[in-house]
Each structure stands twice: as C-alpha cells, then as structure tokens.
C-alpha cells in the first residue's frame, strides 16, 4: 500500500512538473528522411535553449504537404491553431491565412532580435503583406535546376548543359540519337510539370517580366507567355512517354540508373541522388535551366505565428530559434537545403549547396508558382489542370486561354 502511494505521488509530481513547464506545438510536414532528422535536430537544440518547454512535434506527411495543408486549414478555420506551423513563403501564407486575418505580424520581433536585415530583401518581401512580415524563412530550396547523368552526356557527346534553348534542344537531339530518354519527367502528381513550366516562363519573361505577372504590370496574354507554352510543348517531345506513371522521385531515379540523361527538379533531388550513393560533381552535374542565368527560383519553408496560438510566448521562442544562425545551420545541412540568412556558415554545406548559396546571394530571387509562393492556391490548382491537359493535347491556344482564365479567376 505504502509503495503504491509513493508510486502515485511520484507520477503526480512528474506530471505536474511537466504541465508547469509549458509546451509548444509545432506543425509541419517534415516526416521522413533528412527533413525529419533536421527537424529533430532543431527540436533538440530548442530543448537545450529552453529546457522547460516541451515540444509537441505535430507532423502530417503526404506528397509535398498536401495532407498537412488540408489538416492545417481545417484547424485554422476551426479555431484550433497550432502554436507555429510550416508554410511555403508567399501566397500560400498570405492569401490563405494573412488576408483572412488568422496571423499575427512579427515585424517587431525581427527588429527586437536585430535580424531584420539578415535575410535578403526579396525573401522577406515574399513573406510580407501590407508592410508587415508574417513568417520567418528557415530554409531555401532552388527550383530551377537541371541534374544530369555525366556518363550519358559524355556518351552522347554533350560537353556541358547548354544555357540557351537552341543549344539545349540540340543537346536533347544528340541524347535521343544515343538512345536515352533526354529529359525525365514524373508528373503523376501534376505539379512537376508546372514546376518545369514555371522555369520556362521565367526564361522567356526574364526576372522583371516574371515578377510583373503577379503585380499586374505584365499581362498573361503577353507573347512571351505564349512562347513559354511553345517551348514547354517542344520539351514534351523529349520526355519519357510514361511520365504520367511516375512521381518526381521516379524521374530522378531514371537519371541515376542510366535510363535518362537529365531531369529538371528542385534541389531536393540532389539530396535524393546523394542518398542513392552519388557524389555531386562526380557522377552527376547540375546547371540552371536554360535562360535562367541570374535567376534563383525560390522554394522556401517558413514559420509564422497564428492568432490565438495557445502558447504564443513559447511559439516566439521557437521563431527566435529557427531565425537564428545556429538554428538555420543546424537544420539545413541535414535537410539538404540552404539557409535563408545570408550570414550563415558556408563551410557546413556540400559543393552543390555552396554553389546555390553563392547564387542566392547575387541572383534575382523569384517566387515559385508550383510551390505556393507566387500566386494564390486557387491559381496553382487551376494552372496544374491547364498544364496537365496541355501535356496531353498540345493545344497551345487552349493552354494560353486556360492560363488567362485561371489568372482572371484567381489573381
């Protein structure tokens, strides 16, 4: 009996201690591989900094966060926000949550921590609405990269990945003659096709024209949009005919196992190639997509502060951690992305990521469409449909009309 009493009082003590300590619920879709390890390292660091706060790691998996986004929307609109959540920088945050009045501005916090000038201006402006910052970018992926199988390029007689479309199509022809799939694509989930299309769009419009699409200074019936649709259509002549059966991962695997020469993908593909045993610069090479010199297509994960967060003070501690150099340099080398801060420690990153960091510091930073930054989610969904149909029917006029209609509907 006595033993039992002691046991219960210990339990009681332990639990009351836990409750007194407070907690913070962090919502994300980082559930597997490097991203999960990176998140766990961040949580570990958080526990070092704030040993009295218990982190609830609420993750929901599913292709590029599809499930997570639905659960998050249900919770946010239902008045049950987590304390802080992962969201792509840009419209995915502002159109869905800021305009609807569900987020707290954090401009003052950045000033208080003295880090307002530690992020590139282009990035902070993507995270802002109406002059206030609403989320803190923790990592940056680059969207407009081509990864290539060096052995196949050599066999086909292609010295390097051409940076202009004419040269690129000539190279694609050579590879086709050599008997390989020139360009691997896996668009079962629709967005990989849109991902490729946005890079082509950036190449024909240039950085200013591309930005102009979103502030209304460039119209969607611009001839350069039509040109992008045409180039994208020509590219479809060089992709694997079973593209609709695969994911981006299948497409990258085609490059790795020697069936295809090249693949346009975000640089998470680099992390995947590395887990498959390849070394950057040895078995595979990379380059920006043709016409994308000086352009860095940004895919960035950010964290914000929802209104009515149950533990707002602890959430601020989390934001402080992810915005710090230490936090960013803990997370990014493991996740295989680059830090959003410009003053991070370069020596921690591999040869590809260092290249990407250099460009990040000097290039024009453009918001990605396919990954939620440039346009509201309604536009992305509609554009995905239009591009998906175009890949099959190749009707340029219908495709351009569809894009214009999607823009009228959603922008």
């Amino acid at each position, binding site marked *: 009996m006595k033993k039992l009493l002691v046991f219960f009082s210990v339990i009681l003590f332990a639990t009351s201690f836990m409750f007194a300590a407070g907690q913070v*619920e962090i*919502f994300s*879709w*980082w*559930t*597997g*591989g*490097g*991203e*999960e390890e990176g998140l766990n390292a961040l949580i570990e660091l958080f526990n070092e900094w704030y040993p009295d706060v218990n982190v*609830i*790691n*609420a*993750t*929901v*998996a*599913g*292709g*590029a*966060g599809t*499930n*997570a986004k*639905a*659960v998050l929307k*249900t*919770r946010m*609109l*239902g*008045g*049950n926000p*987590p304390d802080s959540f992962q969201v792509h920088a840009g419209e995915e945050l502002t159109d869905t949550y800021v305009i609807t009045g569900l987020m707290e501005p954090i401009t003052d916090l950045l000033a208080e921590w003295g880090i307002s000038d530690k992020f590139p201006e282009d990035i902070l402006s993507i995270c802002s609405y109406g002059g206030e910052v609403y989320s803190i970018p923790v990592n940056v992926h680059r969207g407009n990269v081509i990864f290539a199988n060096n052995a196949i390029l050599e066999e086909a007689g292609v010295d390097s990945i051409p940076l202009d479309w004419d040269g690129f199509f000539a190279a694609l022809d050579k590879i086709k003659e050599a008997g390989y799939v020139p360009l691997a694509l896996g668009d079962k989930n629709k967005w990989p096709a849109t991902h490729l299309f946005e890079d082509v769009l950036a190449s024909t419009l240039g950085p200013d024209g591309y930005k102009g699409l979103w502030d209304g200074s460039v119209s969607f019936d611009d001839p350069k949009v039509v040109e992008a649709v045409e180039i994208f259509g020509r590219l479809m002549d060089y992709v694997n005919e079973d593209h609709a059966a*695969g*994911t981006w*991962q*299948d497409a990258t*695997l085609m490059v790795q*196992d020697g*069936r295809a020469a090249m693949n346009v993908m975000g640089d*998470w593909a680099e*992390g*995947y190639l590395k*887990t*498959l*045993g390849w070394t950057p610069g040895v078995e595979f090479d990379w380059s920006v997509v043709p016409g994308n010199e000086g352009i860095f297509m940004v895919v960035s994960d950010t964290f914000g502060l929802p209104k009515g967060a149950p533990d707002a003070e602890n959430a601020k501690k989390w934001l402080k951690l992810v915005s710090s150099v230490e936090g960013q340099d803990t997370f990014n080398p493991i996740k295989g992305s680059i830090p959003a801060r410009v003053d991070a420690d370069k020596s921690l990153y591999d040869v590809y990521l260092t290249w990407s960091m250099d460009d990040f510091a000097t290039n024009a930073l453009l918001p990605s469409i396919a990954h939620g930054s440039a346009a509201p989610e309604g536009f992305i969904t509609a554009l995905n449909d239009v591009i998906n149909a175009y890949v099959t029917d190749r009707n340029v006029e219908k495709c351009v009309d569809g894009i214009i209609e999607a823009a009228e509907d959603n922008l």
Partner: protein
Amino acid sequence: MAKKKGKKIIVYILLTVFLVGFLLPIYVLLATSFKPFDEVGKPLMWNWPSSLSFDGFAKAFDKLKGNLINSFILVIPATFVSAMVGSINGYVLSKLKFRGSNALFAIILFGMFIPYQSILFPMITFLQNIGLYGSIGGLILVHIIYGLPITTLIFRNYYAEVPTELIEAANIDGAGIFKSYWKVLFPISLPGFVVVIIWQFTNIWNEFLFAVTVTSDPTKQPITVALVNLAGSQVVEWNVQMAGAIITALPTLLVYIFLGKYFLRGLLAGSVKG
C-alpha cells in the same frame, strides 16, 4: 465418388488461379519491404531482394510501436458499440414496422454517402463544443456515428433473411420486443456480426483523415497516422513504408483469421433446428 473427386480438383484449380492473382501485388509488397533502399523502385520491382534487409521493418516498427496501443483503444470500443447499435437498429428497421421507419432508413442510407472530406469542418466544431477535440474519445465517437449507417444496413438486410415467423412465435410465447431480440435474433446473428466487425475494424483501423484531423499530438494518434508519416514530403522510403503497411495490417489480419473461423460453421442451421 469419382465425380466428386473431379469436382474437388476443379475447385482447387480455380482457387489456386484466383490465389495467384490475389497474391501478385502482395508479392511486390513483401519483396519491396525486404529491400535495401537503393533497390527500391519500379525498375526492380519483380526482383526478390539481392539480400534480405530488415532495415525497413526495424525502422517502421520503431516508429509505429508507440501508436499501436492507441489504435486498439480506438478500434475495439468503436467497433463493438457501432456493431451492437447497428444490430439493434437493423432489428427494429426490419422486424418492427412503425410509421416513418422507411423514411428513417432512407435518411440513414443517405448518411452513408456523405464524403469524409465534406464533414471535416462541422465535425471539428462539434467535437470542440463537447470538449472531446484532440482526444481518442472524440475519435471513437466520430467513428461510431459515421459507422452506423453501414452496420444498420448490413444487419437490416441480414435479418431480412430470417423468417419473421421466428420472431412472431417468440412474441406469442410472451416475449417482449427486447427479449425476443436477445433470445431469438441475437444468437443467430453471429455471421452478421462477423461481417460487420470485419468491416468496422478494418475501416476504423485504416482510417486516416479523421484521425489526423482530430488528434494532433503524436502520442495520441492511431497507427495509420504514424504509417502515413513514415513517408517524407519529398523522398519516400518505400521499403520502410511497405514494411510499415505489413506491420499495420497484421492485427487486422489476425481478426480476419479469428473471425473467419465462424464462417466455417453453419451456426444458423443449428439454432433454427433447435
């Protein structure tokens, strides 16, 4: 006698043909789950792993074990309550005719067709109002309610097979409504219960969307959420994922094997004779 033997052989041949077809995907599942990560994928899918790797199973089990118990806490009460209530509903709707019973049945049927996705918002608000949001208790309640149309439907049609005379005979003997259910209908309901329990157990065990929306604390989530969370948002380790799927399916499979035995007995026949 020879004819009977020939028939048996035909039955076996047919069963085996179907079995091979059924096992084809299972083979892929098993082979993939035993592969190291670099052999996973479409090109090598038919190959048996070059060397058996238990990485997938070890990793999957490590991440799933904590959520296994939550699933049992969820599934067992939800399955039994919805099966019991469904059985009584089925009895009332098939054997006790009352005004509006047809209309009630029609409404219940429509309820079955409401898509999961469109009740998410009202469901969350409701659970918040009654203070069960975020708990397994809330999830149990949701599954009981959402499962009722199907359990009711199955029992109603199952009882439709049972001769009404049986109940009437009991009524003449002076048994009340519930007594005649307990004494006459319930004992012969076992095959019906088997079908309903298989359905409910499988569906609640494998249900993901409600589970992930209602419970956000990973220590309270059922196993399916953990299973889906084995996948990363960008890279999916299919060997771990498929090993996880096999581990997750094992309890359900045990339920099938256990309940399946009742199919092999002619339960109803005995009780009708008696």
